[in-house]
């Protein structure tokens, strides 16, 4: 009795599979990718402080390094006329598992249904549309930068928290499209859903890579385009769990206990091109809403880049970035702990050059000055503000190769 059922099952399976494999509109698997290799020279860190009794001098000697900043490999297959699968693997910082260098990440794995140019549905791991740069931030062949606007610089994610916090990096369902209107205008929209940032990291938390809460990331972008002018606003909302505690006399004192506190990102983007000149700029504000008035976790980031195509192959650009972050810091005036809000700002003027040797190879050069200030109010212990200031320069050259 079992054998006929098995035969039926196998016939059904083979028929179903062959039917899927021979879908109209199916295309062969396409594999492509790119990498960017750079040489960077970082000058010695210059550190100053108003209160050397509080802050030990930070030192960072000059260093230079070659580095394969990034390598991405894409797999694309059209499964049927309106269905496409897309996978993106990303390797950062000369990845080596044996040497514990860099990282290897699954960046995207989605399937897209295109009902029309006005309605596209993506399901799977994807980079959501937020402002102008987010969905293309790691596409090095089409960006002139070696070091991108700082909150988008993936290769800094190992040590620079804002890369994972300021912009939404992942979503799981996205609906998007472009709606034509009068006077050659186009209205762009995107709406997406994803996990909260509270993702388990290791076996002690159970299955890794999964959301530990019952909350979601929700976000979207609305934009208008007219020829080479593009304007948009973006927003996201999710909920954050965060806990900071001090131990006093053996007892934990919970100074920050965000229990699914509301986190909101707001963004605005503007880009345009007039003949040989181009401009792109963005503003992002990040805020945590919590019932505790003493806790302020907020910040904003702004950048603007102006470029000029000297020739069709040669671009010169200048850019300015500013990041300001407020976060709590703790003064220990034992037996009590005082929470104040420190303000950190990062200023980053930079300019660079990008030369397209051909369709596949881009040579890049960039100089950046990094200026970091921190202010720590010391009230009520003393009526002063302790500050630190750090500066260094970065010189970099790179080649970006598309294959």
């Amino acid at each position, binding site marked *: 009795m079992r054998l006929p059922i098995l035969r039926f099952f196998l016939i059904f399976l083979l028929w179903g599979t062959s039917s899927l494999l021979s879908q109209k*509109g199916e295309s062969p698997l396409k594999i492509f990718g*790119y990498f960017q290799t750079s040489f960077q020279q970082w000058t010695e860190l210059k550190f100053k402080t108003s209160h050397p009794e509080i802050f030990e001098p930070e030192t960072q000697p000059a260093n230079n390094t070659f580095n394969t900043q990034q390598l991405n490999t894409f797999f694309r297959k059209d499964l049927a006329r309106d269905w496409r699968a897309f996978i993106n693997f990303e390797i950062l910082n000369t990845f080596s598992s044996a040497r514990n260098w860099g990282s290897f990440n699954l960046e995207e794995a989605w399937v*897209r249904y295109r009902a029309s*140019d006005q309605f596209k549905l993506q399901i799977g791991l994807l980079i959501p549309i937020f402002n102008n740069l987010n969905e293309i931030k790691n*596409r090095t062949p*089409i960006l002139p930068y070696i070091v991108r606007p700082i909150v988008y610089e993936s290769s800094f994610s190992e040590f620079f928290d804002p890369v994972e916090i300021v912009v939404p990096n992942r979503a799981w369902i996205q609906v998007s499209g472009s709606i*034509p209107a009068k006077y050659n205008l186009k209205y762009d929209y995107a709406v997406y859903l994803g996990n909260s940032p509270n993702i388990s990291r290791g076996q002690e938390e159970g299955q890794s890579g999964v959301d530990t809460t019952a909350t979601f990331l929700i976000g979207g972008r609305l934009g208008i385009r007219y020829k080479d002018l593009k304007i948009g606003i973006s927003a996201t909302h999710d909920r954050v769990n965060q806990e900071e505690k001090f131990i006093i006399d053996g007892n934990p004192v919970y100074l920050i206990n965000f229990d699914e506190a509301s986190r909101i990102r707001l963004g605005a983007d503007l880009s345009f091109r007039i003949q040989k000149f181009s401009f792109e700029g963005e503003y992002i504000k990040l805020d945590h809403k919590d019932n505790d008035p003493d806790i302020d976790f907020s910040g904003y980031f702004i950048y603007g880049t102006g470029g000029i195509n000297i020739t*069709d192959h040669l671009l010169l650009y200048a850019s300015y970035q500013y990041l300001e972050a407020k976060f709590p810091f703790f003064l220990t005036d034992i037996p009590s702990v005082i929470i104040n809000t420190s303000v950190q700002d990062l200023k980053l003027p930079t300019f660079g050059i990008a030369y397209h040797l051909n369709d596949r190879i881009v040579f890049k050069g960039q100089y950046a000055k990094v200026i970091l200030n921190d202010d720590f109010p010391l009230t009520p212990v003393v009526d002063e503000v302790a500050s630190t200031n750090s500066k260094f320069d970065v010189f970099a050259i790179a080649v970006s190769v598309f294959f």
Partner: protein
Amino acid sequence: MKILIPIVSYFIFWSLCSFGQVAVIANKDVPADTITKSELIDMYTLEIGLWDSGRNIVVFDLKPKGEVKDTFYNYLGKSTSRMKSIWMKKLLSSGDDPPPAIESESLMLEKIKKTSGAIGYISSAMVDEEVKILVTIPESNNQ
């Protein structure tokens, strides 16, 4: 003989006028008889991928540099390097292939005839009745 001279002169004059004009052509099954510049730009920048009938738009580009290609891209208001940058962005963000580059105008004409939903461009003098002309770009666009 007296009748022939004006007739021959007319045809020479007509062919000289056609020379330098570029025709945007499409397969006969394309559900459009004309196309605006804005729509043409959207098709070549891969902003739109479907005809109104729901059929895929299949875009072809010419490989060889020359007057026809220059006239076409001047009409679009974009340089070839700018277009390549746009196509690269589309490929890397959503996997859309750039338009295939066809080796010659005669091959382009054959491709358009045989490919459903296809659109491309060649010099007006080479167009035959087996394809549709959606728009003719005058020579004055080549500056």
